[in-house]
């Protein structure tokens, strides 16, 4: 049918596909890595192919899956608590000045404290169990949830609140009809950023203090000079984070379709 179109492989179409461009960029990246590691990398830098092979072995290794499970328990709990506590806190701070005044100093402390530095303190007071790791992940994540939720509440269009009040809605109605849906895009944006921070917290606590899970495995690979596996582990962490982000993005698109809508002006 399409005999008039000439060659089966249409170059223009191919260049339009973003997956083709991504594959091209990735291939270039892999090539540079391979050449550099072979020519100048030496003992400490595995080649791309060595790393890829290591990742293959790791994906088949129960030890690696076990490490991911151990780490992710702390991540899920800490991140979950950050969301469950952070969203209501952000709502209160965004809507009520008293709550803002009372809580803001603590939020600022969490915001400016170099969290990696207080991990040893936490370990000393809470031990090296799951609780410490959960708290570290929580402290990494909650700030982003609170700050974004608060901003979301504040940027809700005042006239929407006036509008429902004029029709007779009370404070509860204002929340249900305007503030909650109106701030949802910002809340989800906060959850998205918090997720990245939670993954960071999860790995850092295991590297700095409690050598279990993913961080523990990374330290072990390092100690035994298994650099291909070490690189592989980093790639696997990135992959996990990307998958989690894709899930949040999907929820965002499904839950707030109006947020990405551009208004037509006449």
């Amino acid at each position, binding site marked *: 049918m399409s005999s008039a179109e000439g060659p089966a492989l249409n170059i223009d179409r191919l260049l339009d596909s973003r997956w083709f461009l991504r594959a091209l960029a990735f291939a270039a990246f892999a090539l540079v890595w391979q050449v550099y590691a072979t020519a100048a990398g030496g003992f400490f830098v595995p080649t791309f192919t060595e790393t890829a092979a290591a990742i293959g072995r790791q994906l088949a290794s129960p030890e690696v899956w076990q490490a991911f499970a151990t780490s992710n328990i702390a991540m899920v709990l800490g991140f979950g608590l950050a969301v469950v506590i952070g969203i209501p806190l952000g709502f209160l701070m965004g809507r009520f000045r008293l709550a803002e005044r009372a809580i803001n100093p603590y939020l600022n402390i969490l915001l400016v404290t170099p969290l990696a530095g207080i991990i040893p303190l936490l370990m000393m007071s809470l031990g090296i169990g799951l609780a410490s790791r959960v708290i570290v992940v929580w402290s990494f994540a909650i700030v982003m949830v609170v700050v974004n939720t608060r901003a979301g509440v504040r940027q809700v269009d005042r006239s929407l609140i006036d509008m429902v009040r004029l029709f007779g809605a009370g404070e509860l109605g204002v929340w249900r009809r305007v503030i909650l849906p109106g701030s949802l895009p910002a809340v989800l944006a906060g959850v998205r950023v918090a997720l990245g921070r939670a993954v960071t917290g999860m790995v850092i606590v295991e590297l700095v203090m409690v050598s279990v899970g993913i961080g523990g495995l990374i330290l072990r690979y390092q100690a035994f000079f298994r650099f291909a596996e070490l690189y592989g582990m980093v790639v696997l962490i990135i992959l996990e984070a990307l998958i989690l982000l894709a899930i949040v993005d999907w929820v965002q698109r499904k839950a707030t379709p*109006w947020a990405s809508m551009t208004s*037509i002006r006449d």
Partner: protein
Amino acid sequence: MIEIKGLNKYFPGRGRSEPVQALRDVDLTIRDNEFLTILGPSGCGKTTLLRNIAGLVPWDTGEILVDSQPVRGPSPERAMVFQNFALLPWSTVLANVAIGLEIRGEPRGPREAKARELIERVGLSGFEDRLPGELSGGMQQRVGLARALAVDPSVLLMDEPFGALDEQTRRLLQEELLRIWEQTPKTVVFITHSMEEAVLLGDRIVLMSARPGQVDDIIEVPLARPRSQHINELGESPEFASITTHLWTRLRSMQVLNT
């Protein structure tokens, strides 16, 4: 009838500075089913006055009576049309128009029937299931108008409703509003910063001056009703010209004082 007597309103100053007087001794009586336009430079407190009448914000001294009842808060008898449309971006046109009835507790059936009727009156049939973000500004304000009319208020408060629209859309909506008002009269308080709009729409024009906001003059508009059919010709009549000239002289002296 809306009676505003000796209304004064202050806003707290920033930091330690003195409170700012937004409205000074405003006396105004708005007749039933009158179309009243309020015109004035920015900062003259016209929006504050409208929000006071709506019952959205309190004032300091004086009183506002609607049908001899003092205003103490919002009432479904007074509906508002907003300059920025104030539509819920996550709700369809139908749900936006029906929201007043929904808050009032009207069951779904009658509420949606009423909403559809008003959507048709403002010329938006076929758009019931669209989201506001899919509509042009003019269409969005039609939704805002339908929403206000859906609760069948006796007073319609309009805060520069067509200020964000372009010239042609604005003219179309002025005609539409007059047509609806001629069919089902109600008291309209219409704020605008356009002299032309104030004259073409209003029975009377309240001219306000700024800092503090007060009533400067009240002008009867001698243009005949109904006007919706020939709003364009009216804009070229000698009466129109003489009123706008008068308004401009007054506004000009205020602007000069302010700059």
